[in-house]
């Protein structure tokens, strides 16, 4: 809301220097965002919170200035008498068809008006706020809107067919050309003002061009009404029209001010347009005015604010804001009557805020609350698991990314993510907001692509975030960590570089499993759509998948315009959290020396390294404390369809130094088992 200082001074004698005034208003909750010089005047912009429609007027602001600067009262502008004269004749009629949407409508006929350019002072006032002036007929309603906060509309009375005002819902198919020259389609959701034939205004939003006040207008019908905020808001959104008028109706206008504003405007029409205001006005009013009285216990004020106030101070603050205050029941209690323009004040806490606000929050001494020791951990298990996973990934030189969880369904399709269980947004603004992700893969691939385009070819990134699914009409949210490796595994001047492989990714994943103390997991080949066939696997615990890892297939890479090989893993954080080793127990460090024996096999290429490892573990039992594969060879030294696998096995007993014979017997058993079961030969 723009406020001209010279205009404001019509209602209150502002004695404070501008800077001081701005500070006081800001500390009372009227944040002044900008101050401009307009001619010899100063204009400042106040951000008005949605609960204070009464501040959307000069009178409202003047009231607040009075309160913050300790001035008792403000100058109320001149009006015609607020009393309705008994009507002798009825030159027009008002018929409200929807009293919920329009519970009060005041119509007033002003005859023999002289419509021309506005007088200089009014033009200057309206223009100082950056608004347009039209002619004195229209400008007076505008001026009163800013002055009183009540939007009004002036119709050219002679153009109203049947001299009747009907407030009703529009019918589908009806149209109106509004004063901005736009033809608008109406329907039942829109409240209109109609004459006996046509819509003549969109209620509370904009008037029609057919009944607009022009310099030819002789007689004016002045509308001042209360329209239901929700009705007006819906219509305004539907039509895509916003105005100073609907802005105020949407926030609720003061139902008592409807009359005051009408009498104020009538006064100005009489003074400025030399209009005849002798005709009685019609006030159709269905609003029951109930006064709100709140019992205000000052002990509660101290209890909530942490500061003591004198009763006299509380009284004077509330009175300066337009509340009336009487002693209440009980010693420390006041009985406070709320003025009609303060819809936002309903309970004691609202009064507490008023007192604290005008006193100034800066007057309240800071204090620290008593802190109670609590037995619960400051972090949940899942939060700790996420933090741990983040630390472990960072320690492996993998960088963290954060991506947007909404995306187009096309992105999900491009990453070959199962179209089932998708969560779709009903009201996206763009395709990029169509769906929540059901996998971390698409947004991660976008990051890879964006960096590749910037010539960053070596990517090691992870994200910790949720995926969202709709399963049998229930929504679920599951947290995962994604890991992506692409480009060089390492790079230095001595060993040069090697491209990342599946084993690099498997290494990252296994190091996480190790650090979480998860040992009873199974590694399984499993075909997933977005992975290359044969390079697609999952890790399970108790049959449940906790990690999927593999190489992103060519098609998906192409869809994301990626020419490099990309390795991707997705880890279920809740599963890591629930399967983590929760307690550690010490076992004594081995006292006796270990013996290392190597074995090199030649096997058919189809034999898996893992099978050999399993046989070694099975056969040697607990005696083999470590088995390492140290070489895999194919080439001239072995037959074409074969490969050589070389293992190093470390034997150790916790109870005794192993004898040569003992080790030999176990090792040869292992050897025999390998040869027999794998159909292998020694190399």
């Amino acid at each position, binding site marked *: 809301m723009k406020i001209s200082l010279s205009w404001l001074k019509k209602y209150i004698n502002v004695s404070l220097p501008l800077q001081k005034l701005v500070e006081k208003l*800001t500390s*009372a909750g009227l*944040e002044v965002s900008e101050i401009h010089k307009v001619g010899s005047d100063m204009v400042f912009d106040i951000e008005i*919170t*949605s609960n204070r429609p009464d501040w959307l007027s000069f009178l409202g602001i003047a009231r607040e200035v009075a309160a913050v600067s300790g001035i008792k009262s403000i100058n109320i502008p001149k009006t015609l008498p607020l009393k309705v004269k008994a009507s002798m004749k009825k030159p027009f009629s008002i018929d409200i068809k929807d009293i919920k949407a329009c519970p009060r409508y005041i119509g007033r006929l002003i005859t023999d008006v002289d419509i021309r350019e506005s007088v200089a002072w009014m033009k200057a006032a309206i223009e100082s706020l950056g608004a347009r002036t039209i002619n004195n007929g229209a400008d007076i309603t505008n001026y009163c809107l800013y002055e009183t906060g009540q939007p009004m509309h002036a119709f050219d009375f002679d153009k109203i067919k049947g001299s009747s005002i009907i407030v009703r819902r529009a019918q589908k198919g009806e149209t109106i050309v509004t004063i901005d020259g736009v033809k608008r389609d109406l329907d039942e959701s829109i409240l209109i003002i109609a004459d006996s034939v046509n819509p003549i205004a969109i209620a509370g939003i904009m008037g029609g061009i057919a009944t607009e006040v022009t310099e030819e207008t002789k007689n004016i019908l002045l509308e001042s009404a209360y329209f239901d*905020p*929700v009705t007006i*808001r819906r219509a305004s959104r539907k039509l895509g029209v916003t105005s100073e008028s609907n802005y105020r109706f949407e926030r609720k206008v003061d139902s008592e001010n409807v009359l005051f504003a009408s009498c104020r405007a009538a006064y100005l029409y009489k003074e400025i347009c030399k209009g005849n205001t002798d005709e009685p006005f019609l006030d159709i009013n269905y609003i029951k005015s109930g006064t709100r009285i709140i019992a205000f216990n000052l002990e509660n004020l101290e*209890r*909530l*604010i*942490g*500061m003591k106030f004198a009763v006299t101070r509380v009284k004077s603050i509330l009175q300066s804001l337009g509340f009336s205050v009487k002693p209440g029941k009980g010693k420390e209690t006041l009985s406070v009557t709320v003025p009609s323009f303060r819809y936002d004040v309903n309970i004691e*806490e*609202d009064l*507490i*805020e008023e007192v604290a606000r005008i006193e100034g*929050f800066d007057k*309240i001494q*800071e*204090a*620290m*609350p008593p*802190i109670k020791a609590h037995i*619960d*951990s*400051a*972090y949940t298990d899942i*939060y700790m698991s996420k933090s741990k996973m983040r630390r472990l*990934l*960072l320690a492996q*030189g*993998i*960088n*963290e*990314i*954060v*991506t*947007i*969880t*909404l995306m187009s369904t096309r992105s999900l399709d491009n990453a070959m993510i199962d179209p089932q269980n998708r*969560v779709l947004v*009903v*009201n*996206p*603004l763009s395709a990029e*907001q169509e769906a929540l992700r059901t996998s971390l893969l698409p947004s991660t691939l976008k*990051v890879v692509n*964006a*960096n590749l385009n*910037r010539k*960053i070819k070596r*990517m*090691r990134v992870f994200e910790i975030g*949720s995926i*969202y699914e709709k399963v049998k009409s229930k*929504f679920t*949210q599951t947290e995962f960590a994604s890991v992506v490796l692409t480009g060089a595994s390492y790079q*230095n001047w*001595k060993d040069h570089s090697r491209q990342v492989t599946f084993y690099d990714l498997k290494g990252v994943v296994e190091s996480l499993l190790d650090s979480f103390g998860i040992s009873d997991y199974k590694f399984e080949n499993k075909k997933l759509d977005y992975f290359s066939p044969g390079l697609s696997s999952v890790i399970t615990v108790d049959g449940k998948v906790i990690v999927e890892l593999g190489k992103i297939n060519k098609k998906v890479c192409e869809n994301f315009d990626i020419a490099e090989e990309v390795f991707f893993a997705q880890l279920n954080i809740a599963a890591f959290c629930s399967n983590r080793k929760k307690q550690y127990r010490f076992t004594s460090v081995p006292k006796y020396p270990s013996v290392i024996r190597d074995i090199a096999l030649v096997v058919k290429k189809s034999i898996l390294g893992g099978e050999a490892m399993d046989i070694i573990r099975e056969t040697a039992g607990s005696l083999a404390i470590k088995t390492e594969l140290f070489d895999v060879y194919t080439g001239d030294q072995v037959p074409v369809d074969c490969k050589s696998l070389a293992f190093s096995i470390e034997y150790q007993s916790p109870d005794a130094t192993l004898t040569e014979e003992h080790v030999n017997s176990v090792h040869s058993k292992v050897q025999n088992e390998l040869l027999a079961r794998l159909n292998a030969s020694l190399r």
Partner: protein
Amino acid sequence: MNDKLKSIHAEFEQSIVSVSSNEDLEAVRIRFLGRKEGLVTNMFKDLGKLSVKEKPVYGQKINDLKNLITEKIAQKVKEIEQKSIESLKSKGADAFDLSLPAFKNEIGAMHPLSIVTDEICTLFVEMGFMVVEGPEIETEYYNFEVLNIPLEHPSRESFDTFYLHKKSLLRSHTSPVQARYMEKNKPPIQIIVPGKVYRPDATDATHSFMFHQIEGLLVDEGITLAHLKGVLSVFAKKLFGVKTKTRFRPHFFPFTEPSAEMDVSCIICSGKGCRVCGGNGWLEILGSGMVHPKVLKAVNIDSSKYSGFAFGMGVERIAMLKYGIDDIRLFFENDMRFIKQFS
């Protein structure tokens, strides 16, 4: 005495010339300056035999000789070093080149939003708060109704919230977690809630339709606005530095009463006024207030016995101020040249 000094000096000059290694040099140092049997050291011991008049004279002379020897030895150290570098260079390929780049173990860079979230949560944990999280897919009840945001409130209209279907939506703030937590836990309650939130804004340098918030809540007997000010001022000082000033302005939020916005003295200009703070010296950081009695009532907490305060802030905004980042989109583009600045 004089003669002895002269001969020691002469011997030193002779031996130092032929020194070419650090080992030889150390032998020379021990011979002349060694603590037990050094020739010069021994001269000091002889001083005792002299008369009171002679003592200072010779004392000075011995000292001069000691200083001279010390200086020459230091000079020699440099010479030897220089020679060894030269000889390395002349030997060429055989030498070990220490200047080649290291084989560094990389450490990953944490995302700036994680850094700031972590930092803020830790600050509050140090003040006794617990970190709690809640779902991003919410119901209208938790996102609005329980928080005293009635149907007519403008933020309820569909363009301000992403809807999934009729009653389900993507939470537009982290406040629903307050209500969820209060439903299940009795005071004292002291929680801090980080998380993603969604608002259908058009994306630009300061708006993103997904962003992060951190919410806080403290409910107990006797909690006042003075406590709100106390805790949040400590927070501001911990986050932006001890000299940070705070200002609380009355504001409006449906779920708090009274409500306040907190400004901190501009971290760029310390309150003098600059481009970042729009010249007024203050930066708006968070919204806060005393929990509205209707909210307490909705979660079955007796507002005549308990009171509390809540606050919420945007992580991106704080990270942008703290690091001087000028475009919110950078957080979600994940350009490695951006991310690695925070490692």
